[in-house]
């Protein structure tokens, strides 16, 4: 499911669609395929907040739609 639809909870990143620039930037910031992340605040129409280890990231809805996740507990 796209991250933009995820309710608060723990998820695992399955794939990152979209351009190289976006996926490279996310990798550099610690969000990679296989990363386990916590959705802290969700909003299908606006930006969301996710936590990966000690990094707290704000992701715009455009990017959140391109990150595909699956539930992980």
């Amino acid at each position, binding site marked *: 499911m796209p991250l933009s639809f995820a309710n608060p909870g723990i998820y695992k990143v399955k794939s990152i669609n979209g351009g*190289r*620039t*976006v*996926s*490279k*930037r*996310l*990798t*550099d*910031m*610690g969000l*990679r*395929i*296989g990363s386990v992340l916590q959705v*802290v*605040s969700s*909003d299908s*129409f*606006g*930006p969301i*907040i996710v*936590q*990966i*280890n*000690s*990094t*707290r*990231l*704000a*992701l*715009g*809805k*455009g*990017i959140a739609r391109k990150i595909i996740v699956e539930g992980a507990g």
Partner: protein
Amino acid sequence: MREIKVALAGNPNVGKTAIFNCLTGMKQHVGNWPGVTVEKKEGSYVYNGFTFSVTDLPGIYSLSTVSMDERIARRFLAEEKPDVVVAIIDGMNLERNLYLVSELLDLGVNLVLTVNFMDEVEKNNMKIDIQKLSKSLDVPVVGTVAIKGHGVQKLKDEVLNIAQAKTIPMIKYSDELERYIQRVEGILKLFNVKSNTNSRFLALKLIEEDPEIFEQIKSKVSDAKRFSQLLNEVLSDIEQKHEDSSIFVGDEKFKFIKKILRNTVEGSGKKSETFTNTMDKIFTHRIWGLPILFGIMYAVFQLTFAFGGIFADWLDSGMGLLSDWIQNTVPNATLASFLADGVIGGVGSVLVFVPNIFILFLLIAILENIGYMARAAFVMDKVMNSIGLSGKSFIPMILGFGCNVPAIMSTRTIEKEDDRIITAILNPLIPCSARIPIFLAFAGTFFPSHQGLIVFSMYIIAITLMVVLAKVLKSTIFKGEPAPFVMELPPYRVPGFLQVNTEAWKRTSLFVKKAGTFIFAAVIIIWLLASLPAGVDYASKDSYIGLMGRAIAPIFEFNGFGNWQSSVALMFGFLAKEVVVGTLGALAGGAENLGNLLSTLFTPLSAYSFMLFSLLYVPCVASLGVLVREVGMKWTIFSVILLVSLAYFVSMAFYLVGSIFV
């Protein structure tokens, strides 16, 4: 004696600037939002008889080239070849921070690692084994608490040691990746590529398909087609086994990092997260986030104007007394006029607003250091999306209320070129603190009972126009999706009292310095032009300045201020906006006479029209200089034409329509 070049590198928000301050003793601007250091800053120190020149690079996440500040940092490291690179990492966030360190090691630099925020690490019951970390990376590691200066002495020792070291450590990746690196290095050798960057780094970046490095190498080789073909063979070999070559490299790096962390770190930082969590529940609330943001901005506005105004009034009376005293005690009439009219009138009229400006900068510094700026960008993302920009474009807007120059520079963190240009060329519309003197001098004279409302309307008009123009530009010249919004939300931190005061004072002192040098010089010229030719009445229409003003004045006839004094003030105001009030003050012959002069020159209607013009036209020479550097001459000229015509036509429309009703 040789000078040792040191560069500081690290992720945004790891206390890099604080370390820089500790090392060099120079009070640099420290903030708590990603991307404060948008320009490389330099300073130096002497230690054990050696001179160290230190460059503080912009905060970056990797050495790829996604945004402009990363490109700047990478070019500096690869081409300037500093003797020592100090990598600063956040002790609370080792995994992600070490990613950049791995890239620095690939680049083959002489590295000293600094683990900052050791106090937070301890508070959260985490343990980082500095010695083990040092051993497994084969680099010296120092733990620091930069804000308190802990560990800085040790850091200086290590920098000195490593500067004399000969061997440069290297990360060894899995055999598989090492084979690919060797193959690409082989290709580089085959084509005899000469670069001042080491071939291992180039090979890794080529495997990651970094566009800038690829183009750079391609332009150097004799047979670009053959080169691309050979490189593609390696890449397709990788992609047969792995989804994507750049993800493969990233995974390798994180595997390496995880292995190191397993042996060096105990416990995990959960405590501070709960505090940040609670705060974020309030500040980034889906419904309340925006009202809270506006509430904060309104409070900043009120404190700046209402609270600051109390002190400004004291200063104003002080200036009046000083001017009277000079008139009565200085025997030489010309000198007395120069001091009272020129200096006190011109420079003094500007300086009375120092309290307002200090309070504004103080509040901006507090918001930055708490960590609120990134939250403001988050909350505004949805709103900014509706005009085609991302939340990141909002931070330069807030900074612009202080000064447009750093605000324009901060647009470098925006990943999309189109959005960066729009955000930069429209930034001058945000009323910077230098415009405060104009607003207050006019509103105080013409609308004494509605002063706050009138000044507030200036801000609303400027922001509205900026939003409309951004929308227009985004749907005509710069069509396309908003820049992707990815931003780190730093943990909330209690700002140090001394730290925010120093920052605010540093920026205010720039304003004071400007008043003492630049505006002072402008005022002398204005005073001379107003006193000459000999025998003419001071600041009369027959003085040189009067003649100049009368030549321009007719163009402002329909704006309501066709008097020569306004024309001269606006003309000199091109240098800096404070000069508008400085000029009028000097022409009035003293700050305390400014109100009287204004009442004879303007009606309330034309005064508001004049305020509008001053609000919207080019802020100052310095901001234009920065624009040229950041977006080029073409867009700067575009911006100037846009702003000046906007100022001219908006104020004219207001005056003409207003004249019907008044």
